[in-house]
């Protein structure tokens, strides 16, 4: 029999933490700081509205772009909160999570051989998505010395004649870094001068702790060359609902819609109904969760620094990204031994690409009690080194 697996599929590297995953499943009493999702339940009014809609028989396809009322509500929300003027009729697509939005955005713009710059450390799917679309992912390293912000000089250096787009994600998974208006203006000039497109994944926008999130599309003249990705998973504790969205100027949005309608048809209607309720009336639930994350961040980051793992203060998302440079261990050794010897699960930073080799991603979306316990175990581990 022939090998039926496509070269593309064969060439995608396997997940960097499969081994940890399998190991953790066999162990008892593991405190996992390895999870990239909120530990809260979805606010009940969101669940209730979705349940009610199912009872009413709302179980069919929606328009490809998503429920009109959801797009309209979302359009107003984005205008009010982020100064992003997307038209609800032809500049917003509701997707099955940001993961799908990312895929269709890339496929809508990448031709074979096109280079796509990725600000790394980054979410693990960016580079594979570019590869699957026939493009060439090119990492741009965000350094700890810059507090993991994207440095304009580092960006400029990686631009070639083949560069088509730049992908960023701030607040960042895994570093928690945030780009403020000034930071974004500094890279906007380079993007515009080199006629690049910007894909900005802002799924952690609402989880910004020291100020207000600045949408990349609202800075300078970036709007017409920006695809904004966002979703409901992180802000409203709705990871399993699979609802995200892609916003872009009309022509770009239409191109992405062509792909979306063939691969997904539409996002699940129950999720869309829940998402509508989230924007309409879960503001306070969201604020309460953000407030709790802020407290945990303050306490957890102070704790990491105290026990001897230097950690910059993450201004957004729910990840701390401590450095293990001083321990004499690599990030993977550290993560593996911490798991097997002290039963704390963290993700080695190298999984997230350039710039994360000496760090660990620790999600603080777990209770304060567990964070305190995890800090204690990490301290014993460090003391035993």
């Amino acid at each position: 029999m022939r090998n039926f697996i496509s070269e593309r599929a064969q060439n995608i590297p396997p997940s960097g933490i499969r081994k940890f995953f399998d190991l953790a499943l066999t162990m008892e009493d593991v405190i996992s700081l390895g999870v990239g999702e909120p530990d809260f339940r979805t606010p009940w009014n969101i669940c209730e509205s979705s349940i009610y809609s199912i009872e009413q028989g709302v179980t069919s396809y929606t328009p490809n772009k998503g429920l009109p009322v959801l797009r309209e509500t979302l359009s107003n929300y984005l205008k009010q909160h982020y100064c992003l003027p997307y038209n609800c009729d032809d500049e917003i697509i509701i997707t099955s999570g940001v993961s799908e939005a990312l895929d269709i955005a890339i496929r809508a713009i990448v031709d074979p051989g096109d280079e796509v710059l990725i600000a790394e450390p980054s979410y693990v799917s960016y580079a594979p998505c570019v590869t699957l679309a026939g493009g060439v992912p090119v990492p741009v390293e965000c350094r700890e010395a810059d507090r993991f912000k994207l440095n304009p000089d580092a960006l400029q250096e990686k631009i070639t004649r083949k560069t088509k787009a730049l992908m960023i994600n701030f607040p960042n998974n895994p570093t928690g870094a945030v780009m403020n208006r000034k930071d974004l203006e500094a890279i906007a000039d380079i993007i515009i001068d080199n006629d690049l497109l910007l894909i900005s994944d802002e799924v952690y926008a609402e989880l910004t702790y020291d100020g207000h999130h600045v949408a990349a599309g609202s800075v300078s003249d970036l709007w017409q060359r920006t695809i904004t990705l966002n979703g409901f998973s992180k802000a409203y504790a709705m990871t399993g609902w699979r609802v995200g969205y892609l916003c872009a100027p009309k022509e770009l949005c239409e191109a992405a819609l062509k792909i979306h309608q063939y691969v997904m048809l539409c996002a699940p209607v129950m999720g869309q109904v829940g998402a509508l309720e989230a924007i309409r009336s879960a503001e306070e639930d969201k604020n309460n969760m953000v407030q709790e994350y802020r407290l945990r961040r303050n306490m957890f980051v102070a704790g990491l620094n105290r026990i001897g793992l230097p950690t910059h203060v993450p201004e957004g998302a729910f990840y701390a990204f401590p450095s293990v440079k001083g321990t004499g261990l690599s990030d993977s050794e550290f993560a593996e031994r911490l798991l097997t010897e002290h039963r704390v699960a963290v993700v080695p930073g190298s999984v997230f690409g350039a710039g994360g080799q000496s760090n660990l991603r620790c999600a603080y979306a777990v209770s304060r009690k567990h964070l305190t316990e995890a800090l204690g175990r990490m301290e014993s581990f460090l003391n035993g080194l």
Partner: protein
Amino acid sequence: MQEKDLELLRILEDNSRLSAKEIATLINLTPAEVEARVHALEASGVIRKYTTVINWELAGNGEVSSIIELKVNPERDYGYDRIAERLSRFRQVKTLRLMTGTYDLQLLVTGKNMQEVSRFVSEHVAPMDRIRETATHIIMKSYKENGNVLFEQQEAERLPYSF
């Protein structure tokens, strides 16, 4: 009120047993600063008391709680205030509120058993001047108190790792 004070109050409302040191790391203050702010909030009367949410049903002392609705004739110049202040002096009255709707005052009353509650209502509350009508509702089971769910909830399963 300052943002830090509001944060402090929300933390204490959730768990008043946290030490000043623990609270300090949560909101980036020193323990001494936390203590000073707490003292100021106590002195100004914003913080009234530190208490505990107890599931008495589980503790099994058999106490009975009831909600009592009162229709009251208000007094010239004083409205409901004087009678409410008078009622609130009773140890048995845990909570007292003036309501909109079909009745005026709402009392939360606890007693060792039903007889005790009913005696309190019939001997002390109902005969008071200006009280026109009373309605007593015994609480059969409490599912949530002050934002705290009292029944067991299943914990959601999460994967050990996700990106």
